[in-house]
């Protein structure tokens, strides 16, 4: 049972425009969410996170929005740059007494020059 879902396996966006990646979760015990970025032949790297006590967190061109009632989060990248082309994974952590993350299936973002 996939508790963290990324329903778009791929997304293409024009350079300079906004990229919006979406993630849905089912477990209401999740209280911390992260986005990771992965280039081919490399391990994922941390991008941005948000705690469930917030609804928005911004870091430069990256903003994560959290809608707890809808169990939905999104990552906005603006403006999109060619170097943003990668696979993006959302991940969730719950108040289970451990630091185990549950990852989504990933969205491949392609920025078109």
């Amino acid at each position, binding site marked *: 049972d996939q508790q963290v879902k990324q329903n778009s396996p791929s997304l293409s966006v024009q350079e300079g425009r906004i990229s919006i990646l979406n993630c849905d979760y089912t477990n209401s015990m999740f209280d911390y969410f992260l986005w990771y970025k992965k280039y081919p*032949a490399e391990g994922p*790297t941390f991008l941005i996170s948000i705690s469930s006590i917030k609804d928005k967190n911004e870091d430069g061109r990256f903003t994560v929005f959290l809608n707890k009632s809808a169990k939905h989060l999104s990552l906005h990248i603006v403006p999109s740059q060619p170097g943003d082309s990668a696979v993006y994974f959302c*991940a969730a952590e719950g108040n289970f007494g451990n*630091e185990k*993350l549950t*990852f989504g299936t990933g969205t491949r973002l392609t920025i078109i020059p």
Partner: protein
Amino acid sequence: DVKVTQSSRYLVKRTGEKVFLECVQDMDHENMFWYRQDPGLGLRLIYFSYDVKMKEKGDIPEGYSVSREKKERFSLILESASTNQTSMYLCASSLRDREFFGPGTRLTVL
């Protein structure tokens, strides 16, 4: 900077072979994890460890075992490799909710 290293970037093994994947982290993290990444399935947790000699099953432990004899080293073992274990294997260590990943090992089982 946190560094997580994995012993091999690419590995080719035959069905039935015993396979060891090694992972080392240099930041004294207590938590370490092994994932596999497959197209359309994302990252799936195989095993994790919170301390030396301690291990817990993740979501897909079947066909795998692990060893954590030292804090910095977490090994994934395929006792008898099978073709459905062909995958990208990623090791991670964590500090305060943030996981740091190694570069991955692409394992092909023929």
